[in-house]
């Protein structure tokens, strides 16, 4: 069972602020969906390999060649806050 405290913690992990009055509602919905997911336990998956990817692909390599790329102005053109051509983030420490 997911509690309101769990929802708060998951929200913290996901960097999603959950308002106090929403915690209960999310806990209920998450429990309902996770209850449905529980049916996967019925399936015997002994010796079954997981499928991360449907195609049997290995690493794809390319030559290390310089190609065209965005200019600095284009790259930061959508940023809400910039300084001296850089993205400006909130202070970390």
């Amino acid at each position, binding site marked *: 069972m997911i509690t309101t405290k769990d929802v708060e913690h998951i929200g913290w992990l*996901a*960097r999603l602020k959950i308002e106090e009055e929403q915690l209960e509602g999310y806990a209920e919905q998450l429990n309902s969906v*996770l209850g449905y997911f529980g049916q996967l336990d019925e399936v015997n998956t002994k010796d079954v390999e997981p499928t*991360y990817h449907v195609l049997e*692909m290995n690493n794809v390599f390319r030559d290390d060649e310089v190609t065209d790329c965005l200019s600095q102005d284009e790259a*930061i053109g959508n940023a809400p*806050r910039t300084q001296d051509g850089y993205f400006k983030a909130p202070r970390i420490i």
Partner: protein
Amino acid sequence: MITISQTLEAIRNSSAEEVVNQSIDRIEGGKFKTFITVAKEQALEAAKGADSHSGPLAGVPVAIKDNMSTRGIQTTCASKILEGYVPPYDAHVVERLKAAGAIIVGKVNMDEFAMGTSTESSYYGPTLNPWDPERVPGGSSGGSAATVAAGEVPLSLGSDTGGSVRCPASFCGVVGLKPTYGVISRYGLISYANSLEQIGPIASNVEDMTLLFNVIAGHDPRDSTSVVGEKDYTKALVDDVKGLTIGVPKEYFSEGIDPAVEKSVWDGVRKLEDLGASWQEVEMPHTKYALAAYYVIAMSEASSNLARFDGMRYGLRLEKDHDWHTTYSEIRARGFGEEVKRRILLGTYALSAGYMDKYYLKALKVRTLIKQDFEKALKDTDVLLAPTMPTPAFKLGEKISDPLTLYMADVNTVPINLAGVPSVSLPCGFSEGLPIGLQIMGRHFDEETVIRTAYTFEQNTDFHTRSPEVV
């Protein structure tokens, strides 16, 4: 609805600019709320050079789902968090469309970040179904299917992570293909669940869908999952199914299926039998676990993919920055809608320490069994036939309040994405004026047989000739 050949003829009789202008008039005067952004200026400018263009889609208006990057045209994923974002580059499919002479007329509505089955979760409001404006167009590519059904444009692109091209194609009575994973480059497609999703073409008939598919399919080194090789899919437009064996998986006719849907699909099987195909029932025993496995995987991938939306490089930013954690958490809380938040939370939980084996790894193993179901079923058959959706389009507001009820609507579409096989939806009947979709699935990289079966069905039926009354 309008076809490519009608559009090309109209261009010959007037000009590409005139035809594009008319298309934009229909979009702007339309009542189904199909678009988020109409790119009128860019489209008319591009149309000026289209009369002398030699590409197969020269001057043809195309609508793009709002989760594909379009240089200079706002791209929002139907989310508040990306409002005002103008990509500095084109998605690979958009580059290919422009090279073929197509005119991008704008960006169509969708469920926020493609998470939904009804287009009701869009921050910009729902799109309406042209066959009945009280009903949903399906989702998540609801705008893509509705704009074609309403005759605003002949062609559009959607994306399909768990049915998001096929569901709206079914609900809106148009043709939509989810290609084999890897056939179309995802470069420039804003990721939701990257191991499941493919861009897919939508049109009013199989031939047009195939022409559009031919233009956008092919290798692109910028998507490492893009497979090498080019094919001419139009060679598969053959009106003949003699010798083909159809598999009908009974698990796709599960409880809750609308009797009219069941009948129309079986009529479709018999029609193809009359035309020379044979059919047999096949078993796909893990189908009932596909929904749970799909949602675990999709939500897990979503929680990771959507971590990039933090207001630093693009999108919503608060007036004042606080500390790092508070700033990010508030931006994301205000920018994402309810369903997106739910999926991020569930995905974060499914990937968190202590639960990863129980949910994520377990779902990936069930995915293997579902993929094996397809391999076995398609060993003695060439294609599989089933309903795309268990019902015709439901009403606006009918399912949106209960997430799990809405997820259940995807029961027949998600297994295809888990297995990565190709699947097309095309009209096969009507129930009380609402279209019903037939789903034709095939082997990996065997789009040709899927297209051939769909084309033969269409050439020998008249469901695709009906259009909704839009005026």
